[in-house]
């Protein structure tokens, strides 16, 4: 017990340090080559040789790093809660149909509204419409799942319903794509590749506050989450109001998934893989230490992925969703192959 709590602190401090290093690295490395000294000057508020460098560092790299940090944490926490709540190691925001719902919302805005928006998605009005679409889509799916949770008691059945809703949303997206304009399909595809660069400094406070609300609810759920490790009937016997807790869990993970998907596109694998990385690191499924470490891990992995994205330098940016599975898939495979070694799900 003492030892494990120690591990929580140890990894917490270690990850925080890595997080800071990666965050700073994200400010210094980008597709535009800016000298090390110049970035230092920008950060310390000194004059730089080119005014554009100041703009790139403060208005592009800084918000992008912040976005990656929060997005990673949000998706990871969301995945952790869903895995515990649904008693399933392969649950995650994308599995439950929440991110597919967000995608459908965006598809409706971009592909149906595309003709009205003159095709370019990066117009301001279009951007906000995208966010509203994603948020609405995610919330509608979440409301559906909450509704079904009043009818279905079994978590596994609810998970399957979530997957089914995801399929229906996917087929609706296919249909919209089929009838949409070429420009609409293209901009939808670009959004679908995922990108941490979609939030400006002006929008950052809204993103930040929404994430914080999600994190707050999540951290308040640590005690019932631990009880849920024993399964719903044991948890009930420990005084947990299962229905209430499950609703809050879905709301918190819904908010976190919706806000990240809305701003950054459907980001694969982080929600699924990071909770497993955190468990492997800590060697415990006790949420007291697992929840904060998962949050930090999510931030670290997302910052790392963002860094990998800009590695080609002047040659362009690798799409985010081409990077996250490369980081995430080996971990999932490891989890499946080593199920006997990994003890937290039996």
């Amino acid at each position, binding site marked *: *017990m003492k*030892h*494990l709590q120690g591990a929580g602190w140890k990894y917490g401090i270690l990850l925080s340090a890595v997080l800071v290093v990666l965050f700073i690295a994200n400010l210094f490395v980008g597709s535009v080559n800016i000298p090390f000294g110049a970035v230092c000057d920008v950060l310390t508020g000194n004059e730089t040789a080119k005014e554009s460098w100041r703009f790139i560092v403060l208005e592009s790299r800084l918000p992008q790093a912040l976005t990656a940090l929060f997005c990673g944490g949000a998706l990871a926490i969301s995945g952790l809660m869903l895995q*515990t709540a649904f*008693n399933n190691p392969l649950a995650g925001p994308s599995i439950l149909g929440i991110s597919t719902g967000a995608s459908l919302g965006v598809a409706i805005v971009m592909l149906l509204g595309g003709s009205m928006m003159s095709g370019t998605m990066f117009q301001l009005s279009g951007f906000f419409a995208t966010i509203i679409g994603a948020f609405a889509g995610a919330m509608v799916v979440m409301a559906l799942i909450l509704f079904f949770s009043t009818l279905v008691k079994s978590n596994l059945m609810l998970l399957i319903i979530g997957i089914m809703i995801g399929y229906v949303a996917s087929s609706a997206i296919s249909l919209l794509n089929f009838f949409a304009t070429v420009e609409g399909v293209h901009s939808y595809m670009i959004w679908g590749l995922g990108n941490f660069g979609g939030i400006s400094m002006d929008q950052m406070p809204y993103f930040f506050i929404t994430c914080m609300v999600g994190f707050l609810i999540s951290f*308040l759920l*640590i*005690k019932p989450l*631990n*009880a849920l*490790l*024993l*399964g719903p*009937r*044991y948890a*009930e*016997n*420990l*005084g*947990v*109001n299962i229905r209430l807790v499950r609703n809050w869990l879905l709301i918190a993970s819904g908010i976190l998934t919706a806000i990240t998907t809305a701003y950054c596109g459907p980001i694969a694998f982080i929600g699924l893989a990071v909770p497993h990385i955190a*468990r492997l690191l800590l*060697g*415990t*499924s*006790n949420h*007291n230490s697992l929840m904060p470490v998962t949050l930090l891990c999510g931030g670290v992995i997302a910052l790392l992925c963002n860094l990998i994205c800009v590695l080609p330098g002047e040659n362009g940016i690798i799409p985010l969703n081409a990077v996250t599975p490369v980081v995430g898939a080996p971990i999932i495979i490891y989890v499946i192959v080593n199920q006997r070694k990994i*003890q*937290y*799900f*039996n």
Partner: protein
Amino acid sequence: MAAKKDIVMRGSDLAIGYSRGKKNERTVLGKLNFTLRTGELTCLLGANGAGKSTLLRTLSASQPPLGGSLFLKDKPLSTYSEKKLSTLIGVVLTDKTQAGGLTVYELVALGRQPHTGFFGKLHESDRKIIAQAMELVGISHKANNYTAELSDGERQKVMIAKALVQESPLIILDEPTAFLDVASRIEIMTLLHKLASEDNKAILLSTHDIEQALVLADRLWLMTDENLQCGVTEDLILNNAMDDLFGRKGISFDHAHGVYYPIVKGQKQIQVFAGSETLLHWTVNALNRHGYACHILANKDDADRDLPIIETLSPHELFYTSVREERQMYLSFDEMLENL
């Protein structure tokens, strides 16, 4: 020792079953009358599908009763909040958990949740209670092991410790000894009996382990398709209540030994005389298995000349006398059964 036996739970005319709205009720059993007292270990016995789990779920407030009244202490069970209930009833279930990544200590500590604050922080008093419970069930030496590393018997002890730290007067266990070997079964049952008598808990458990239940239960609840009979073990056995428990033909209850055995439908009859109770028991056992109905002879001279006789004087001296008065000696049961 003579702690006062308080009534913890009382059911009168209770009906249990499943309900999907008022019009779609499926009653499993009705008219159940029973009491649970502190300091007593009660074993619920019954055939598969008789409704044991349904009854336990109803008593632990996981599902509502369909009729009658069910009192916990002095108030109806349904009037308690979830929070309050968690300090009055502790359960041990057969449910699969995903707590393999928790240490034994952490899992037992979860049982303190009804008593801890919003964030579940453990105080010194909580730690003391957890340590005591682990000591009591004999799992202290594994406190820092992952529960995934435990044997089934040890895991069951951990869950019992979890129920203990809830400090509830009533503990309900659903088949706590299923999947366990004989040694662990005896250990767990003895532990539960000790907890009932020494810690003055009311303990109710369902089991298929009739042998242990008859030895250790203070009271038995016998559940059949028709009703629930409650009483002290010996009263029930000697009033033939056990006979119809499984309500099936071909099974009979041995009142002397407290075990169920299949009724022999053999056409062949044989007389048995043995040098001791033990030899008699196993001789009859062997012959029954081979389709012989046995007439037990108290005295060798009472033998009926029209039936063959088996005499077992020791495990290595078995005599077979046929109706034609031919006498044959066998050196083992193997040899005897081979030549019958």
